[in-house]
């Protein structure tokens, strides 16, 4: 998400319907139609009904990007492009957005796609009676109205300058599903999803293969290129890579913890490594209300004692990219000065000495091999600076409740890759928010957060977000270790893979050379 909408003038531009047509009419010389690919996913997909699964993980995201469409999409530069919506306009306060929808689109079951169908999707997720986990992610939207057949109005609780970019990601919330299908199929709908997307679910054997066939009536004529996509969960990293090498899979999901295989693939001319550094980061929060973290010197000392390069070397063979702010390379927020503290062991030692009391604390660590490794590396860094960290291993699902109840001294957290920093920055740092884990309150920070969310001018927003980063870094209430980096390994013959926004590997527009 580089530059969703750069200025208020641009933000109001009524994006012409022509762009969608122009996109589909790109020179077809390079693209070849036909053929079939097999995709090696990390995980079994549990299903697609938002009420059942709540959120889509990256494996489900790959399937969702093929079966469903979203209102918008992001191009390679991160600019919002029309998909099911042809154009959009905000109100002056950015609290109301009006989307004009694409006419003549039908779901795979023949149900027409229109504003009413979209509203039904939204209302079903929002309805408190349905207790959908997905409702959290649309909490910022008060309602969606279908003012006519093809006009959709989003009424927001808070201003959102980048709403069209935020709805581009094929999540459980944004993927538009057929209301007729979920009503008719009931409990079975979860595993028999129906969308408007370029591929139709043909068959799905639990835990084994999902076969997607080209949608012959896709609204985007000439697309998609491949006749068939087979998605297979291959949970073991070694055999997943072996399947790519032996040609059974054409593309596989991967991550930086599988550094050896990624490096092997880089050297293999028959393979290609796709990587994308998104926005957000792997982050940690100090509880500033409890000792020793009620003293800024201790917090600063621990952050300065980090050596991210060494850490990356130790856990991912150097693949993990250090982060000095919460925005990341994939974000359009670029700071000349993000206020990052220097990595300086001597200064860290001096600060701890200055603090005068022994620094002993516990850190929550997920009880997984990766969690433990990261915990141990941090423990060593801090030991050298004169602080004693005790690892408290907990289950992944235990971290959120402990964090919400502030029953921690130091906890890992994550800022995920979204098209706009506002939602997460506001939740994580505005005084009094349930996820403002540091228990830290600063009127200046609050003012900047309020201001950044309601400003249309991207240049001004960048200034605000960089000022926010400087405050957080200086006060050392949270710290960042590595950027969110995504990997896919494929055969060199597979072409046209777009950027992996939010970590979703979207093969629905690819072709074989």
């Amino acid at each position, binding site marked *: 998400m580089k530059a969703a909408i750069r200025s208020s003038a641009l933000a109001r531009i009524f994006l012409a319907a022509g762009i969608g047509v122009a996109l589909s009419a790109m020179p077809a010389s390079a693209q070849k139609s036909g053929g079939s690919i097999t995709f*090696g996913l990390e*995980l*079994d997909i*549990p*299903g697609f*009904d938002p009420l*059942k*699964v*709540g*959120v889509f993980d990256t494996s489900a995201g790959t399937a969702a990007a093929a079966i469903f469409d979203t209102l918008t999409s992001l191009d390679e530069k991160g600019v919002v492009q029309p998909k099911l919506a042809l154009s959009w306009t905000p109100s002056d306060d950015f609290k109301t957005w009006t989307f004009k929808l694409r006419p003549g689109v039908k779901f795979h079951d023949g149900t027409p796609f229109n504003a009413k169908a979209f509203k039904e999707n939204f209302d079903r997720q929002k309805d408190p009676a349905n*207790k959908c*986990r997905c409702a*959290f*992610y649309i909490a910022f939207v008060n309602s969606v109205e279908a003012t006519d057949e093809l006009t959709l109005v989003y009424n927001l609780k808070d201003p959102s300058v980048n709403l069209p970019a935020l709805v581009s990601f094929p999540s459980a919330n944004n993927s538009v599903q057929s209301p007729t299908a979920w009503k008719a199929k009931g*409990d*079975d709908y*979860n*595993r028999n999803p129906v969308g408007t997307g370029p591929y139709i679910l043909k068959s799905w*054997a*639990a*835990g*084994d*293969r999902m076969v997607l066939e080209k949608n012959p009536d896709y609204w985007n004529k000439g697309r998609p290129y491949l006749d068939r996509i087979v998605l*297979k*969960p*291959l*949970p*073991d990293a*070694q*055999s*997943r890579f*072996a*399947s790519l*090498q*032996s*040609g*059974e*899979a054409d593309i596989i999901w991967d991550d930086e913890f599988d550094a050896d295989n990624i490096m092997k693939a880089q050297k293999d001319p028959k393979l290609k490594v796709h990587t994308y550094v998104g926005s957000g980061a792997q982050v940690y929060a100090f509880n500033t209300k409890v000792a020793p973290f009620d003293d800024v010197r201790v917090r600063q000392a621990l952050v300065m004692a980090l050596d991210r390069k060494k850490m990356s070397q130790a856990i991912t063979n150097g693949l993990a990219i250090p982060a000095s702010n919460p925005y990341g390379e994939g974000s359009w927020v670029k700071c000349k000065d993000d206020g990052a503290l220097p990595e300086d062991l001597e200064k860290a030692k001096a600060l701890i000495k200055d603090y005068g009391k022994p620094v002993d604390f516990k850190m929550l660590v997920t*009880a997984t091999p990766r969690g433990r490794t990261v915990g141990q590396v941090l423990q060593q860094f801090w030991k050298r600076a004169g602080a004693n960290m005790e690892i408290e291993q*907990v*289950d*992944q*699902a*235990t971290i*959120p*409740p402990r964090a*919400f109840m502030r029953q921690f001294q130091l906890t890992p957290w994550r800022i995920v890759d979204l098209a706009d920093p506002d939602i997460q920055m506001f939740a994580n740092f505005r005084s009094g928010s*349930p*996820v403002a884990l540091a228990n830290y309150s600063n009127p200046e920070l609050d003012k900047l957060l309020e201001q950044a969310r309601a400003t249309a001018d991207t240049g001004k927003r960048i200034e605000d977000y960089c000022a926010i980063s400087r405050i957080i870094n200086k006060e050392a209430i949270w710290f960042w270790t590595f950027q969110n980096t995504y990997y896919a390994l494929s055969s060199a013959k597979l072409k046209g893979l777009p950027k992996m926004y939010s970590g979703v590997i979207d093969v629905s527009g690819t072709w074989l050379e």
Partner: protein
Amino acid sequence: MLLFVARRLLYLIPVLIAVSLLTFFIASLLPGDLAYTILGDQATPENVAALRKDMGLDQPVWVRYFGWLGNILQGDFGRSFRTGQTVLQAVAERLPVSFELMILAEVIGLVIGVPLAIVCAARSGSAFDRFMTGSAFAMLSVPAFLSAILLIYLFAVELRWLPATGYVPFAEDPAANLRFMVLPALTLALAEWPGIMRVLRSDMIATLQEDYIALAKAKGLTPARILFVHALKPSSLTLVTITGINIGRLIGGAVIVEQIFALPGIGRLLVGAIYTRDLIILQGVVLLVAAGFVIMNFIVDLLYAVLDPRIRHGHA
């Protein structure tokens, strides 16, 4: 015989109750709150409280246990909160895969183990015997996850004879199904044959010392007939025992092997349920697998009785 079966069946009841208790309480000891797992990172305390009430999680653990057990006795093992599938549906979908894998592995194990055991017993102490006993010991120490990866690299990546991962149902294409099953079954069998071979070998060496073998030799029977008919038959009990014991190990091995070869079997279902905290699937599958194991052992007991009348009459 009927009385024997009835008595054995009665023994099953306390065993199955113990299994259900263990399954349920171990699952409920798992850290992390199911309500938080379902609601995700952003659950509010009110939502969590409401969901806990809905799911009965606010009840004491023994109340929940009896509720669960009561449903199971009525054939309702519950429904996954993630996929909406019932436990029985999920197991029925996946069982044939694991079943085929285990049978193939056991057959391959027997095909390798039995002839080797006979040859080694016939020539006990020879160089071949010592070599095979040594190799069996070495093979026994190789974990499945290692042999699986080595087999994949050799047969799938280097030689490209067999696929590394994947599965086709037998009913759809038997030949393709077997191609996908060879490596996983071989991986499991590599850990199975040494046990079969070593136990059978020592059993047969003892049998070969018996007087009736000497008599058979004296009668001038061919060595092959003596070995395969006269010496092997008394060892059939031993084979049945090992096969029965192996089932437990095979189930454990299948969990790992299915994960590596991406076979959609019970093992994958189980591992997936653990990762996603799908406790309902987890409890149900563990209970069913444990019950399956207990019943298999019950069948083994019955086979003993068929093979050896002394057991049937309670004199053994």
